[in-house]
């Protein structure tokens, strides 16, 4: 279609140019031809006059009217002359046809001289030229010239048009048509053999083929690349979909962008609260420790590095806490703001195992109370946490009376039963936040928090002693009452470090033992000199 219009364009251009040239040259040549014809005609008149000049001169010389009349009559026989006259001695001696006044035209005249003396002017011969006829002939002649020229120009234009069509437009049109039928990538090429030419069109065909080849190669590369990308995408999607770890993408404010099935499986969520609720904070819905999760997200965005932590997530059953290890990494920016990628996996089992290990390390296996190490570190920790002169607490050191006897009499099982029973009683009598530990053998340690009041401590100590009035069935049918000696030291009153507080509680406990057992006493610095009679 474009080639069609190209052809039309070329044709129109050539036609317009030809028309312009024809108009211009016709105008020019018409004018010139007209003027030339006119001049020629005037010269003809002049020559005509010269032809009869001699005779007219004779007529004028002798003033012979007959001869003059003959001359002028003869002149008017010519169709380019409409009137003629001969003047001799200022008198018209011969006239024929129209006068110059009639025709309103200029006269053409020549002087007549004496036949035998060229210096003597004897008269004048004047004619009225047939200007309309001359003009008509000039016009005809000029028109013929112009038409001839126009025809010539038209023929040349037509030839140019045909040649342009034959040598340029047609091959281009063929080339274009063939190119139009080719879709890049279908392997087709322009038939270069049919346009085997050394000119630009041949070159164009070759170049187009080269271009087609390049495009095809690029398309093939693109196709392969796309294939590889698709393959990779499938793999990554597989990893994403099948991962046991929950993978999710959230925005800075906690709205979910996307998440994999494992995420929903872990969190127990079912719907994707995507664009439906733009402000839905998935972080707050998923995590129990959502403040910590939010701060991790902010941290990873600020530092541009991953940050991780063990976090608790909400579950449908509130009694069972589930733990996940969650890694937040910055994942680039979108139009809606910065996004963070989160990866979470269930670490509940590990958490419980860890707890169990800690318990094993810190608990006394028989009684379930804290062991010596746990008690000591708890004491240290308490002292470190407490600002001097701030928090107060009491340390009770308890030793069972007659335990060795029971152990020896009834065996270890009975001893163990006693220890377990006593431990349960002690645990029950104090608050959960208080530490109850078995230091080893029949020795127990209590740390009573928030024990500022001596009376409260005394009451607790008395309650402990009272509780031991209930006998323990150490063997079927064997009941025994077990007494205990309790030494109490106060922090920071009786010592500003763990060792001294314990030592002082120990001293107090020995004092009770020496004074008859089954009682309690507070450490008294005055008793310092008393301890441990060598005789006992």
């Amino acid at each position, binding site marked *: 279609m474009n080639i069609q219009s190209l052809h039309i364009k070329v044709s129109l251009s050539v036609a317009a140019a030809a028309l312009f040239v024809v108009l211009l040259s016709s105008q020019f040549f018409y004018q010139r031809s007209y003027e030339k014809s006119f001049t020629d005609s005037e010269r003809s008149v002049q020559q005509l006059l010269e032809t009869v000049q001699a005779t007219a001169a*004779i007529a004028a010389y002798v003033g*012979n009217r*007959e001869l003059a009349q003959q001359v002028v009559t003869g002149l008017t026989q010519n169709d380019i002359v409409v009137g003629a006259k001969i003047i001799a001695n200022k008198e018209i001696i011969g006239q024929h046809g129209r006068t110059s006044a009639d025709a309103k035209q200029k006269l053409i005249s020549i002087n007549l001289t004496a036949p035998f003396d060229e210096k003597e002017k004897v008269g004048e011969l004047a004619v009225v030229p047939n200007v309309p006829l001359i003009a008509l002939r000039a016009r005809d002649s000029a028109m013929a010239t112009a038409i001839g020229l126009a025809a010539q120009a038209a023929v040349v234009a037509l030839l140019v048009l045909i040649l342009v069509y034959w040598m340029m437009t047609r091959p281009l049109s063929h080339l274009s048509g063939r190119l139009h039928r080719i879709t890049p990538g279908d392997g087709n090429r322009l038939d270069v053999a049919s346009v085997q030419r050394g000119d630009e069109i041949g070159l164009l065909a070759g170049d187009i083929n080269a271009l087609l080849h390049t495009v095809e190669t690029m398309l093939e590369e693109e196709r392969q690349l796309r294939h590889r990308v698709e393959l990779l995408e499938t793999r990554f999607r597989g990893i994403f979909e099948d991962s046991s770890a929950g993978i999710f993408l959230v925005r800075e404010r906690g709205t979910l962008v996307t998440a994999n099935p494992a995420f929903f499986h872990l969190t127990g969520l079912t719907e994707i609260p995507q664009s439906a609720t733009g402000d839905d904070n998935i972080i707050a819905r998923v995590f129990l420790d959502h403040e910590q999760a939010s701060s991790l997200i902010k941290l990873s965005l600020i530092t541009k590095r991953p940050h991780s932590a063990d976090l608790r997530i909400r579950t449908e059953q509130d009694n069972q806490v589930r733990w996940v290890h969650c890694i937040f990494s910055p994942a680039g920016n979108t139009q809606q703001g910065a996004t963070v990628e989160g990866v979470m996996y269930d670490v509940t089992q590990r958490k419980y195992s860890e707890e169990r290990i800690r318990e094993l390390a810190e608990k006394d296996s028989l009684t379930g109370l804290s062991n010596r190490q746990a008690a000591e570190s708890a004491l240290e920790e308490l002292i470190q946490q407490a600002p001097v002169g701030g928090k107060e607490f009491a340390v009770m050191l308890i030793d069972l009376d007659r335990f060795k006897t029971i152990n020896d009499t009834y065996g270890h099982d009975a001893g163990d039963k006693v220890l377990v029973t006593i431990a349960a009683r002690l645990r029950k009598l104090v608050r959960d936040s208080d530490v109850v530990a078995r230091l080893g053998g029949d020795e127990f340690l209590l740390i009573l928090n928030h024990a500022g009041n001596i009376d409260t401590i005394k009451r607790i100590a008395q309650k402990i002693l009272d509780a031991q009035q209930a006998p323990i069935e150490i063997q079927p049918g064997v009941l025994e009452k077990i007494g205990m000696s309790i030494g109490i030291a106060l922090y920071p009153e009786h010592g500003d470090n763990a060792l001294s507080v314990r030592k002082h509680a120990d001293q107090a406990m020995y004092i009770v033992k020496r004074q008859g057992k089954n009682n309690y006493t507070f450490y008294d610095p005055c008793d310092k000199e008393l301890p441990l009679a060598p005789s006992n």
Partner: protein
Amino acid sequence: MMKTFLLMIALMCSGLAQAEILVIVNAQNPVITLEKKQVMDLFMGRVSAFPNGQSAETLDLKTGMPLRARFYKTLTGKNEAQVDAYWATLIFAGRMSPPKQLADEQTLIAEVAANTEAIAYVTRQALPKNVKIVTELAARE
């Protein structure tokens, strides 16, 4: 040698003298002298009267006579044929007639002597008393 040279000059002088043409009229004609142009206008038919108004009759020699050719050549610069063509043109137009032609110079002189209106031309010679010269034309041979 010298004799020969002198003879040649004498011959030439006599030749020049012989070439002179005399224009003559009747002795009783009041015209004393005529210009060459006046002579030409009379003989070429432009005027038919002498300057004083007296009508004139031109007398010519027969066509083919040497003096006639010489006379017209001297007068108009044209040869005889041209002069005859001139007259033919005028005769063809009508109402005009060329000078009357006579047989020889003696007839011309006799006619002029007899006709007071006549005017003619002759070679230089002795003329009778009733004929007078009005002009002389120096013929260029």
